[in-house]
């Protein structure tokens, strides 16, 4: 009985993976199709849509903007994430639940509401919409992910190592730099990569808060209105897909290394 069940579960698991991947696979397929209309049977193989990409100045500008926004958002949200994750995993204090609840709140708010509320405040204060305002919004939505990744990295971290360092005469900052930081470095790198990827892909907030300088998703959104531009968008999407895949694989490897390092630290202690 339970063997039959588990066999069906295995079948289901593979069907589920097919369901998850099927739509994504059409992007690369149609991005090398000669016909501009995405339909089967395929017309023929071409790389012309890829060749045209670097010849589009607006696209290059958008890519550059996304890179800047992504880097700033990743660094800022990781720094703020380190503060929060460290506070939550290291100290017991009153207001811990409330504070971390508020920090995680952007995860369960419709993004459009975050976007319009930031828009109202920014315009009411008389500030200009720019890449900077996009960064502010992106940091807000990246922090919950950073905190989750970093919490996992900081938890199970052996405090006695820090105490030993303090007993041996290191200052608090010295202990952090020479004991804590090397242990949690993989989690930090993983947080940077994850938040960069989120920022790179984020559309709604960038759509509302970007002024004249747009990010890649906002550029893509503009292109989607023109059926003829679709293959170019698919080619760009394929490149982004490969890029995110590499970044995330790297983040995953880092996360695993962090776990192993902490387990090893525990074993030594």
């Amino acid at each position, binding site marked *: *009985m339970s063997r039959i069940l*588990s066999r069906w*579960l*295995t079948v289901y*698991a593979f069907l*589920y993976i097919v*369901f*998850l*991947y099927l*739509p*994504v696979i*059409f*992007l690369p397929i*149609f991005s090398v199709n000669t016909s501009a*209309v*995405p*339909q*089967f*049977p395929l017309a023929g193989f071409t790389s012309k849509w890829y060749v045209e990409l670097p010849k589009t100045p607006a696209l290059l500008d958008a890519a550059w903007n996304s890179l800047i926004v992504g880097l700033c958002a990743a660094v800022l949200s990781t720094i703020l994430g380190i503060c*929060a994750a460290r*506070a*939550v995993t*290291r*100290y017991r*204090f009153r*207001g*811990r639940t409330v*504070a971390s609840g*508020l*920090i995680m*709140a952007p995860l*369960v*708010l*419709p*993004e*459009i*509401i975050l976007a*319009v*509320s*930031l828009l*109202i*405040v920014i315009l*009411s204060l008389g500030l200009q919409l720019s890449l900077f305002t996009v960064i502010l919004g992106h940091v*807000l939505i990246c*922090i919950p992910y950073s*905190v989750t990744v970093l919490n996992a990295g900081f938890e199970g971290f052996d405090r006695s190592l820090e105490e030993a360092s303090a007993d041996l005469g290191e200052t608090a900052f010295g202990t952090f730099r020479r004991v804590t930081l090397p242990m949690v470095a993989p989690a930090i790198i993983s947080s940077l990569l994850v938040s960069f*990827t989120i920022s790179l*892909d984020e*559309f*709604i907030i960038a759509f509302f808060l970007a002024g004249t300088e747009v990010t890649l*998703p906002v550029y893509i959104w503009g292109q*989607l209105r023109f059926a003829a531009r679709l293959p170019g968008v*698919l080619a760009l*999407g394929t490149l*982004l*897909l490969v890029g*995110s*895949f590499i970044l*995330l694989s790297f983040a*995953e490897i880092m996360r695993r290394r962090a776990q192993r390092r902490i387990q090893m630290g525990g074993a030594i202690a």
Partner: protein
Amino acid sequence: MTAAAERSGAASAHRIRRGTLLRSEQAQGIALISPTFLYALILLVAPVLVVIAHSFWTQDFLTIDRTFTLEQYRIALTEPIYRDLLARSLYISLTVSILTVFLAYPIAYYISFHGGAHKSLWLFVITIPFWTSYLLRVMSWKVILGYNGVLNSGLMGLGIIDEPSTSFLYNTNAVIITLTHAWAAFAVLPIFVSLEKVDRTLLEAAKDLGDGPIRSFLRVTLPLTLPGVISALLIVMIPTVGDYVTPKLVGGKDGVMIATAIETQFKRGANWPLGAALSVITMTVVTVMAASIVFVIRQAGRRVR
């Protein structure tokens, strides 16, 4: 302070030291979390409060009239268009969250109980599509469901239909399918985490006491994983209610959701107070819906036990 500690006995010195230690732990914790907390306070709480304030005001061209009024709420709740959009958004987000959880539970179960050494690889494989561009994932559903799309050409190739069907794209179901796909990973993860916490000895006990696999699942595993199911439902339901991209790309006229109305008020329509009222209503209604679902599930869980 040192002098005071010396004067009193050893016991009270100990108490004082513990007191300062606790106080400093309290202070250090708060000091450390405060930058992040303040960031969320300034960029999340304050703006949401500003939105709530705007929802009680009115706008005349470019100037905001700050006299308190419920006029925006009257418009938002009585105009049929807003009522329909809100009802449809709630229906879509509810359906999508239930669907994703139903589809995600078996896979989370499979990974947790049969994943063996490859659990984290499975999770990685499931989360990868979620990290690819959201816009393009929605776009690929358009490619699949469209008139010249993959589904139509496939069905025609198989001889199931004679001419392309227009009923796949530009309706509520297209929005539901696309969102269910887009939020799949979000539902798998919390359920997986709660399944991992299930004490396996309880299942052995149930088996020893004569429960079959289905009975022990219904009486042990499922009730113990309800918190995961609840958080999966909420983490899908609340954001999807305000989704903008999917209804715009695959929803057509019949799939428009409330986010489009909010966007119009803030961009072209330039009526911030009405947009604010629509946002507040959306937030409130989805919170109430989420809370009542949590309540119902908890009650049901208690009855099973």
